[in-house]
């Protein structure tokens, strides 16, 4: 005897009705329009990385790694990228890189403002929190189907799936970072007559930047882990290599794609981590960051002194 003997709720029918008969016919153009900016950024990045010759991309990434993660990471970057090129996965890797950068960019554009709002308003946080919980726990296969129905197949829908999966950490950590700014600093800023905007830009955001960068790093890692799944709905790149290998029981091909993802993941992880730590010690202006990017002298001792 269980409640199901009495009545079976047609939950699946309800969802089917909601998505197929209501969302898709009524809102498909709206969702289609949503992917326009994503496609735009993605295509631009993809063209860019396809245009820049492999050695130059490698050198730029090696320099970034050197600046933010030390000389060993720079060496790893060079060796790793050469290896990828030599197993003939360079263009796929660059496609994946464009997809990752696009997803992380949109995650930041959506996530940081939402995180800020959530930090400053308990109601927003109370509403946001369960949504984030759902986003993080719901298996991504569940939303792949409605995404295909609403957006179709291809790169942009793959990126949208990635954004849904990778968005929570940056919102959570932006919220956390801003809420954790010392209360006496907030009080000080208020006592000197700050407006809400001044409070945010002068005190809260700079002091939360380290935590926000940690969130960005997490988002990046999650985005990388979605590469293979996104390939299921038509996104290309390394994920496609893995999926093809899987379909043909081609262990070698799948492993090659996997190794490419791992190498890319390690390099991007270390660079963004280093970026976050650097920002915590000193808030560097955009100009200073750009200037120091092209300076080869390591800044390790300066950073230590300031810390």
């Amino acid at each position, binding site marked *: 005897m269980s409640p199901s003997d009495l009545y079976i709720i047609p939950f699946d029918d309800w969802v089917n009705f909601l998505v197929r008969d209501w969302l898709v016919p009524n809102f498909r153009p709206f969702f289609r329009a949503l992917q326009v900016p994503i496609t735009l950024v993605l295509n631009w990045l993809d063209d860019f990385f396809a245009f820049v010759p492999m050695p130059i991309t490698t050198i730029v990434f090696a320099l970034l790694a050197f600046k933010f993660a030390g000389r060993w990471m720079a060496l790893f970057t060079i060796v790793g990228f050469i290896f990828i090129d030599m197993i003939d996965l360079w263009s796929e890797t660059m496609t994946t890189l464009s997809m990752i950068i696009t997803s992380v960019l949109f995650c930041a554009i959506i996530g940081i403002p939402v995180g800020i709002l959530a930090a400053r308003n308990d109601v927003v946080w109370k509403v946001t929190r369960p949504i984030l919980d759902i986003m993080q726990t719901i298996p991504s296969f569940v939303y792949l189907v409605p995404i295909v129905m609403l957006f179709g197949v291809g790169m942009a829908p793959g990126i949208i799936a990635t954004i849904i999966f990778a968005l929570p950490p940056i919102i959570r950590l932006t919220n956390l970072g801003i809420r954790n700014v*010392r209360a006496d600093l907030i*009080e*000080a800023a*208020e006592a*000197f*007559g700050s*407006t809400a905007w001044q409070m945010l830009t002068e005190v809260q955001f700079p*002091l939360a930047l380290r935590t926000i960068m940690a969130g960005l790093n997490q988002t990046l890692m999650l985005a990388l882990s979605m590469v293979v799944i996104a390939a299921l709905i038509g996104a290309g790149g390394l994920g496609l290599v893995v999926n093809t290998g899987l379909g043909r029981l081609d262990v070698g091909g799948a492993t090659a794609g996997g190794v490419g993802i791992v190498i890319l993941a390690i390099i991007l992880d270390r660079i963004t981590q280093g970026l976050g730590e650097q920002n915590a010690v*000193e808030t560097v202006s955009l100009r200073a960051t750009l200037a120091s990017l092209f300076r080869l002298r390591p800044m390790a001792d300066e950073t230590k002194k*300031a810390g």
Partner: protein
Amino acid sequence: MTAKLRVKDVYKIFGGDPSLALERLERGESKEEIFAETGLTVGVQDADFEVEEGQIFVVMGLSGSGKSTLVRMLNGLIKPSSGAILIDDDDVASCSADRLRQVRRNKISMVFQHFALFPHRTIAENAAFGLKIKGVKPAERRERALAALEQVGLAAWADSRPSDLSGGMQQRVGLARGLATEPQILLMDEPFGALDPLIRKEMQEELLTLQKTLKKTIVFITHDLNEALILGDRIAIMKDGLFVQVGTAQEIVSEPADDYVAAFVADIDRGRVFTAETVADAPAALQLKTDSAEDAIKNMEDLNRNALYVLDGDEIAGVVTYQDLTAAGRENGGANEAVLNEVLITEYPSTDPDTHLADLYGSASAGLPIAVTDEENRLVGVVEPQAVFAQLSNEVTPNGESVEIPETAKTADTAEKPSRKGDAA
């Protein structure tokens, strides 16, 4: 005398509908009873005071006494449950958010217990924070920040980070940040509480030195009665959100309002509270040209003193003791002006009216009365050595007059030599 800051019937109730607690307070219920029955916490009750322009008003209380709540109401960081807080004509308790922001930007600034410096900014940027918020241009901002840092002796550190500085230096930056916007009122919330004792003492002295030139209206919060007594032109002792006593350092030490205050006062160094003028007697000086040794002896016997000062016109000529006079009298057989001259001790101890008793121990131990002089070196009073020790041991002297400020000394002092407190007035 103008009141810069007027606080009228201010109450602060935490935790819900304040009217419940306000009613009960009116019926005379205590803070504990109200908390037990309603769950409301009485932060501050019936705060009613004025702070004169240029005065240091110290609020002293232990943790939980409501002093931090009180100071935060003065710049609107905490809204009072009822009452008015007037800075000039702006009521901080009820004005619009925009008006409040203007008041904070232009009239009132704050120094915090744990410094609250921004770790991501340099010292100069920290000092310039208030100016940046006000929208002052970068060049002028830096110039004024450097000027403020100069005042606290930290201009050389302008481009360092707060983490490079010691606690005392960080609080100087906190002070510079508070001063840079040139506010009229400075709120200081236990500013020296987190510093070690030697640095704290140094900072107290520095604040007093700065105050001589700045003449800001300062509300200073502390849990240290000694600090309150050293700094305060007026002191309020706070307990359970209520002012137990408000008065000058000397009033609080000599006439504690209740056992609570008395318990605090018991441990303090009275020598650093009372000044020479508080124990000074009328000079009752002799004139070198006109008074004879006989007059001198008669005066001493009448006044029950062992020594008297001798003036030559307005100038102090020296001091004569009963012992020397009688000894000389026996030798000469007759008393005259020559004798007065003969026994005159010209190496006499002197002090100004604001000197603390603690600094008079040395002079007092010589046994001679100490001359209290004004800035033109005229005798305005004398301090008998026993009066110093009687005040220190908190005993009223036998004739009962030495704890009173002699009328002559007092008027001469306020009229001709305004003290620090006189300045404030």
